């Protein structure tokens, strides 16, 4: 080819120069475990359902959520949201209000009538499973087992389904129509619930032809403590009290002044319920101080707003008609309350004991293989008891006693029962590394304040069972969902695509994400450093 004077080479593009050969380390896209997902006792894929909610795709969000938990509207009201305690956003401004969005999705589903898909005909196993107890754990297991294709029968001793969600949680925290609707959605896919059907003989149940049994009877017996009392002293336990409030036509009347003894959430529930049923004064007496109280802080706050009184560092020594004797306590160096010998008298018409609960496990006596230790049933890693084919979960096994933990037990047990019934043990996938805060580049997250749920005013609510905490509207819920930082998982922000000085990051499409062109990637690490959510990492070249 003729070239101009002094020109000897053809024109070329720098694309001929593969600068990828400079590289000693290379970037790699990864998916990490978000801390919220890790913390969720029900194993929800929170980040994924928030992802759908961010786009306003609420039904997809709800369907993602209910793959793990059939009760979003209930969870959005009663879950103590350990996800929010784990949320990395708390270190930027405030944690994402995951619980509020969950409630919004749950309520949206009820409003719009979204239903669960019944199991497809080809997945039906023909196996029968008995679930004992229609509480959160039992219903969760029944739901998952049904979706996995099994025939499920739930039997409960009580007159209504819901277990502690109905008999332990007052309706001002969980309105009953919500509970009923979320339970009904489970029976709609073919789970049968038999009420007033206490299971007393497991061997007989097995003889009916059930292929597996899941036990989830809960812990419904209030612990008693010996307190010397006069003959006409009125003493009852919190569990019975809350149960009677729920079931009896004639609500139990406890008089003008009610004392609740204990420091847990049940004590708070009992005191707030007594106040709503007409007690002029409801006083919680607890032997330690507020810091040591097992009740959640927001519940204590709500109780205080309603005029509940709290008496710290006190034990009840003697109860008589209309009054009781209280001894002041002092915390010793190790934080234990010690008696001080100082006494005072407290006017009170009745005393509610909220000292914890125990499971009624008498029906397990004589069942071969099942071991009861410290009042709870021993289970292995697959939630199976010592008896093959009998699994257990919820408050009757050793674990934290919350609705969400119970729901998680139900899901976990259902997966293992499914494996057991199909003869192929369920092996959960290995957990990915956690997306910790240090892996994030939070500069890129715009400042966005947490959206608060409105509360009914304390004075107004202490006389009614109206729901105390209100939900978010659509705009607030979407705002809140969009505060999610998507820790550890790409959410298509284009930062890697933009910040590469060598154009070595290619945008494929959202489903496939981005790809690195290793012909030109020099391995500078800018994409890794500038990825907001930490979903790129550097690895050494081979």
């Amino acid at each position: 080819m003729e070239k101009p004077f002094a020109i000897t080479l053809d024109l070329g593009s720098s694309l001929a120069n593969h600068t990828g050969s400079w590289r000693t380390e290379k970037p790699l896209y990864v998916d990490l475990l978000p801390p919220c997902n890790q913390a969720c006792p029900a194993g929800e894929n929170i980040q994924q359902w928030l992802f759908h909610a961010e786009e306003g795709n609420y039904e997809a969000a709800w369907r993602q959520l209910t793959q793990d938990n059939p009760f979003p509207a209930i969870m959005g009201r009663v879950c103590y949201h350990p996800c929010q305690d784990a949320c990395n956003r708390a270190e930027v401004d405030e944690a994402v209000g995951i619980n509020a969005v969950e409630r919004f999705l749950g309520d949206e589903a009820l409003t719009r009538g979204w239903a669960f898909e019944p199991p497809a005909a080809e997945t039906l196993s023909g196996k029968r499973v008995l679930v004992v107890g229609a509480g959160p754990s039992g219903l969760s297991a029944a739901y998952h087992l049904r979706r996995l294709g099994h025939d499920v029968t739930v039997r409960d001793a009580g007159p209504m389904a819901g277990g502690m969600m109905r008999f332990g949680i007052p309706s001002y925290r969980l309105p009953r129509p919500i509970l009923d609707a979320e339970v009904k959605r489970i029976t709609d896919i073919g789970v049968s619930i038999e009420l007033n059907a206490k299971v007393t003989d497991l061997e007989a149940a097995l003889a009916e032809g059930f292929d597996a049994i899941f036990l989830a009877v809960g812990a419904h017996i209030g612990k008693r403590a010996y307190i010397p009392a006069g003959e006409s002293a009125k003493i009852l336990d919190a569990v019975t009290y809350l149960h009677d409030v729920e079931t009896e036509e004639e609500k139990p009347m406890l008089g003008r002044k009610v004392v609740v003894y204990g420091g847990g959430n049940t004590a708070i529930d009992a005191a707030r319920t007594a106040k709503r049923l007409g007690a002029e004064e409801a006083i919680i007496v607890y032997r330690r101080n507020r810091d040591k109280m097992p009740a959640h802080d927001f519940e204590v706050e709500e109780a205080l707003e309603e005029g509940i009184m709290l008496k710290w560092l006190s034990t009840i020594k003697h109860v008589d008609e209309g009054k009781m004797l209280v001894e002041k306590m002092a915390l010793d160096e190790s934080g234990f309350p010690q008696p001080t010998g100082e006494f005072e008298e407290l006017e009170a018409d009745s005393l509610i004991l909220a000292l914890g609960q125990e499971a009624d496990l008498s029906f397990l006596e004589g069942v071969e293989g099942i071991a009861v230790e410290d009042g709870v049933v021993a289970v292995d890693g697959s939630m199976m008891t010592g008896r093959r084919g009998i699994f257990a979960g919820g408050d009757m096994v050793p674990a934290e006693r919350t609705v969400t933990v119970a729901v998680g037990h139900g899901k976990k047990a259902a997966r293992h029962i499914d494996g057991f019934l199909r003869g192929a043990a369920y092996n959960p996938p290995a957990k990915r590394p956690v997306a910790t805060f240090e892996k994030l580049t939070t500069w890129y997250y715009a400042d966005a304040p947490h959206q608060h749920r409105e509360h009914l005013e304390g004075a107004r609510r202490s006389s009614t069972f109206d729901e105390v905490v209100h939900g978010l509207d659509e705009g607030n819920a979407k705002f809140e969902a969009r505060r999610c930082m998507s820790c550890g998982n790409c959410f298509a922000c284009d930062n890697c695509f933009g910040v590469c000085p060598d154009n070595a990051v290619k945008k494929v499409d959202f489903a496939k994400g981005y790809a690195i062109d290793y012909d030109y990637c020099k391995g500078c690490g800018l994409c890794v450093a500038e990825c907001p959510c930490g979903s790129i990492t550097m690895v050494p070249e081979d």
Partner: protein
Amino acid sequence: MTTNDTTVEQAGFHHGIVPEVLHEDPASKPVKFYQVGSFAVGNRLLPLEVRSVQSDPNRTNALTSGHRACQGCGEALGARYALDAAMAAVDGQLVAVNATGCLEVFSTPYPETSWRVAWLHSLFGNAPAVASGVAAAYKAMGRSDVRVVAQGGDGGTVDIGFGCLSGMFERNDDVLYICYDNEAYMNTGIQRSGATPPAARTATTQAVGEDPGNTFGQGKDLPRIAMAHEIPYVATASVADLRDLEAKVRRAMSMRGARYIHVMVPCPLGWGTASSETLSVARLATQSGLFPVFEAEYGEVVASSPIRRQVPVEDYLKVQKRFAHLFAPTKRQDVIDRLQAQADRNIRRYNLLPTGAGTEGTV
């Protein structure tokens, strides 16, 4: 504030002062999205027309792969950001004139070129004059659609091409001049330029003697010198703030006459930072106040970007080896204090911390 729109703060849009003109520009409108605000390159939740040029898979890639800039080069990135934005703003009708320097050397080792725009290089010192000539030629041909950008490093701009640049400003030639400032002559081995900050170590300002590093009281503040020419538009920008940089290039391309944009582009080699730290150190420069980001029209400042997460200058200095002598063997608090005083003066001069702006946090 020229707006009553309260969504500006909520969306984390970084202009406390939002000039009216930016509101006409859809891609720089405050947008209500929170997961990643206007700070990231893109966002799947945004409609296409308000996304950044860099998030577009069909961007020009004015400076394409295979160039020989160092790993993590701030200038290569800044040049692509700026020219892609300019190409998008003028529908591809663009000529770029380049001064000598890293950007020219690493992009065009004969016979290869990385440029995907009409590109012209003559000498180190004459880029503004050549650009003026290109603009005059198109004017003579009656082609008002073809626009001209000149670009160079801080050496070619602040020192060697300074006379030509001042003339271009004075004549108000229809050229946008973009300076990529990495604060020394990096191409030839890190010699001091008129844009090198005080106390910085370069090959010609070694960290020895009583006052190690570059001298205080010398050097030139070119954005302010450009403003003194009272040309239509002067702006500073940071390679770490893409959306702001793109908005300024678009704004500049919407005007005629002499325009000047001064872009902070860290150099991993010359500054002694890891190649992955180019953007984080650029953020520290603006968040400490040492590099003020503002825009001016006809000699007057009309807007500035408030500091979002303020840091002391020490945070900026200590990550760079060119300032290592301020921390060891003995800490030179006196020198750090003088640099902090410079940052504080910038904060006052450009109102970088208006009431309500600036929270503590990780930059």
